């Protein structure tokens, strides 16, 4: 929609421009072309400037021909160019011609080559392709080449796309600031323009200015740099927050299932990470089937994988609970060991059936790419994962709050024996809780398959982190898990710039270890006599 609008605008603009200026340009283009026949460097240089300013559609191919010594002139002062295929064409009309006259190439030297490059740069500013225009504007912004100024002015006059127009104006401002001929007032205005741009490049541009500036200009530049610095610092904080939020959503997804099983059953499930892995491999399998039999459905692959991953991980969870954990209630440390053994078996099983290497899980259309928001680049997959984590969290809260199963789960968490006395089948609740927790881990696997390598070791990377989240947040409290994930995720991303990724992680581990000394039951500990039992 936006793209087509932009195209329509471009076409309209080009048409208006052609109508308004056709006559004059034909004139100036041809008179400029004649100068090539003068066979002197000065005249060639003037011809280049004239051609570039003419706006003739042939201008670019003439200049390119000149660059490659394919621009020829005959004794009759007519100019020809030999195109890349070797056909001789009349430079004025672009039509193929036969010429019997002896032709000599227009000579060039280094000065002329520079002029050609600048002129060609200017010409792409007028290109019909908006992407090329934007690129050219950015190139001029970096090169600050004064020769591009006329083309810039012309391009600004014609530009209809607001974003490109701003880029062009910023490029002009960059040229003006560095131009020895621009007036003080022009420069001041240009500094204001750069200040409004306000990114790292703008700061670099201003900071790179030579020292011999007038008093007022120097002050304005210093102000602008300070303003840009403030803005950058603010965006940096926002960016860290965003990255932290993104990490937190991943942690939340990985930890939330663990929080349920740990909270309700007091069971440390070391195989939890492997449930995440199973979810990711389910996604892989779904995509394989879709690729093989129904490629049209690829965009829906995740939607298909979500319930399947929940089912697969949930069923494996029930199998583990009924087959192993059931026999170990009241012995949490042994449960930890047994589930560790299960995790080894699951990992090895996946390794033997799918191979030890990473498997390719594709991103559906709506999850690829990124968009800009202020000084921030937001990738769609991260955004969707945050949304997904939020939805899962809300759903789980609703299940716990409004369903019978949720009620019974909360009862068992708070007082297992009293619940049993109230005719709640605690064994059944345990199995269902374990299935629910594992199923949610499977859902996490679907999400993580989009941002992480799908390999047999996928789960291992998350298990320690998610334990820390659960322990930090406090057991038996979903909000505690949310706060734990948010604080650990954001703290991690804020520590990283100062300490580096690895050291930041170590610092965080130390902080959590110290925190547990202070509050051994986590941030939101359950209170009451039963806790001390």
């Amino acid at each position: 929609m936006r793209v087509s609008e932009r195209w329509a605008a471009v076409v309209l603009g080009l048409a208006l421009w052609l109508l308004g200026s056709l006559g004059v340009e034909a004139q100036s283009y041809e008179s400029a072309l004649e100068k090539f026949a003068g066979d002197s460097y000065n005249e060639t240089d003037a011809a280049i400037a004239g051609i570039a300013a003419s706006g003739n559609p042939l201008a670019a191919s003439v200049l390119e021909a000149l660059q490659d010594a394919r621009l020829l002139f005959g004794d009759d002062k007519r100019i020809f160019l030999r195109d890349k295929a070797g056909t001789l064409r009349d430079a004025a009309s672009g039509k193929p011609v036969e010429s019997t006259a002896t032709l000599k190439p227009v000579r060039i030297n280094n000065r002329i080559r520079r002029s050609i490059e600048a002129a060609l740069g200017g010409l792409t500013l007028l290109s019909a392709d908006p992407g090329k225009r934007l690129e050219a504007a950015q190139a001029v912004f970096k090169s600050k080449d004064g020769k591009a100024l006329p083309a810039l002015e012309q391009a600004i006059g014609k530009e209809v796309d607001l974003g490109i127009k701003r880029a062009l104006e910023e490029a002009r401002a960059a040229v003006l600031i560095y131009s020895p001929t621009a007036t003080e007032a022009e420069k001041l205005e240009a500094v204001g323009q750069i200040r409004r741009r306000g990114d790292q490049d703008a700061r670099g541009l201003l900071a790179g200015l030579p020292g011999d500036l007038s008093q007022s200009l120097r002050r304005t530049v210093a102000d602008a740099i300070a303003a840009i610095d403030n803005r950058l610092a603010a965006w940096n904080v926002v960016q860290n927050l965003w990255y932290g939020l993104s990490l937190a959503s991943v942690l939340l997804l990985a930890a939330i299932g663990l929080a349920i099983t740990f909270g309700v059953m007091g069971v440390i499930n070391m195989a939890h990470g492997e449930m995440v892995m199973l979810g990711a491999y389910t996604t892989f399998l779904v995509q394989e089937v879709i690729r093989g039999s129904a490629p049209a459905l690829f965009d829906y692959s995740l939607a298909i994988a979500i319930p399947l991953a929940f089912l697969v991980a949930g069923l494996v969870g029930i199998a583990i609970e009924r087959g192993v954990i059931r026999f170990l209630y009241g012995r949490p440390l042994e449960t930890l060991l047994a589930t560790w053994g299960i995790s080894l078996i699951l990992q090895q099983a996946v390794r033997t059936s799918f191979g030890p290497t990473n498997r390719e899980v594709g991103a559906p259309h709506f999850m690829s790419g990124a968009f800009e928001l202020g000084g921030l680049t937001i990738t769609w997959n991260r955004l969707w994962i945050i949304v997904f984590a939020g939805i899962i969290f809300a759903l789980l809260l609703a299940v716990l709050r409004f369903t019978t199963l949720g009620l019974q789960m909360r009862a068992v968490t708070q007082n297992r024996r009293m619940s049993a006395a109230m005719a709640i089948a605690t064994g059944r609740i345990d199995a269902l809780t374990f299935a629910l927790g594992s199923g949610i881990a499977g859902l996490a696997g679907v999400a993580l398959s989009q941002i992480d390598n799908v390999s047999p070791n996928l789960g291992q990377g998350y298990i320690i982190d998610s334990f820390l989240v659960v322990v930090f947040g406090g057991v038996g409290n979903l909000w505690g898990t949310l706060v734990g994930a948010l604080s650990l995720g954001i703290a991690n991303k804020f520590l990283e710039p100062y300490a580096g990724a690895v050291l930041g992680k170590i610092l965080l581990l130390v902080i959590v270890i110290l925190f547990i000394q202070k509050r051994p039951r986590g941030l939101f500990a359950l209170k009451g006599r039963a806790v001390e039992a």
Partner: protein
Amino acid sequence: MITRRLLQAPDGRGRVFLAILVGLAVVVPVLNLALPPASPLHVSTSTVALWGKYLCYALLALSLDLVWGYCGILSLGHGAFFALGGYAMGMYLMRQIGTRGVYAHPLLPDFMVFLNWPELPFYWWGFNWFAYALAMVFLVPGALAFVFGWFAFRSRVTGVYLSIITQALTYALMLGFFRNNFGFGGNNGLTDFKDILGFNVQAAPTRAALFALSALALAAGYLAAQAVVRSKAGKVLVALRDEESRTRFLGYRVENYKTFVFTLSAAMAALAGALYVPQVGIINPSEFAPANSIEVVIWVAVGGRGTLVGAAFGAVLVNYAKTTFTTGLLAPYWLFALGGLFVLVTIVLPKGILGLLSKRAPPAPATADWPAPRLEGAGEAPMRAGTPSGQLNRDDRATARPPASGLPQPAE
């Protein structure tokens, strides 16, 4: 008096264990060095090194059994103390290379020259002296365990919470040691050792001596652990393992006992690591991997928790199985076997092999009474028909079991 107590302590099984160890320490080096390779009784040097490694693992398992079997602290980070002890020994061995390294630098180990380090960092000072390195083998892991234990036990971090933070500890150390700028060789760790106390580490006599030392260290570790668990303090340890709150209410400073035994155990694990490194010829950060530490737990569980001898036995058994498995056609199935072992032992063999073999009640606890984590709900043993645990409520159990030690001694 202390000697007498040390020697009196072992029961029949312990005496057999000690006799085997001393016998191994004497016989294996003789069979390796004195007999020609052609002789059927000859023990090859590689076998000596392999079994020396097993004995180090056995000492590590023994140290874990001391805290887990007798004090209820399931440490999932004992590999960290093992590796730290190993690194201390590795640093000594690195300094002994001297100018024989690739870069022939007189002072700096190769990896530091490679990374353009200008001088030896302060924490490497003194490691050219064996006595200093040996002291560090015990002091660094001991101090870490003391500080960590002091904080953790004073805050009453117990059960699975403690297990998780010990795991986080070794994980953090692993991440740190993987970094080049930590000054311990990063990824590659410390290797290419040449001499230990002037003897070539590769030579057969050195290997045999290291084997004998490992066997003797295991024996000494067993005697020390035995002395601790047979002492009055040992009775308190068992008491607090089974009923921590009650022990505290009786006036014992539970955290002091725990910190003491945790530190002692860490020092034993560190000694095992120090003996391990010259025999395998390398120490690198993967020794800190949480998976390694958990594997140690299964050695103890297989052999029999709370038996000391069983822990050592389990370590040798599981590692022998691992070597056999991973060098043959069955290599891809080793993890299935190990995982299955975890599950089977915890469900079917809660007392380990030794508990199965022995009709006499070992000092192992009744598994039903393991302290549950102090969580709501889970802290209470579940009420369910068919589950052997927790049918008694707390008052019943209190009357059903005599106090753990004869005379309660209030701690100072």
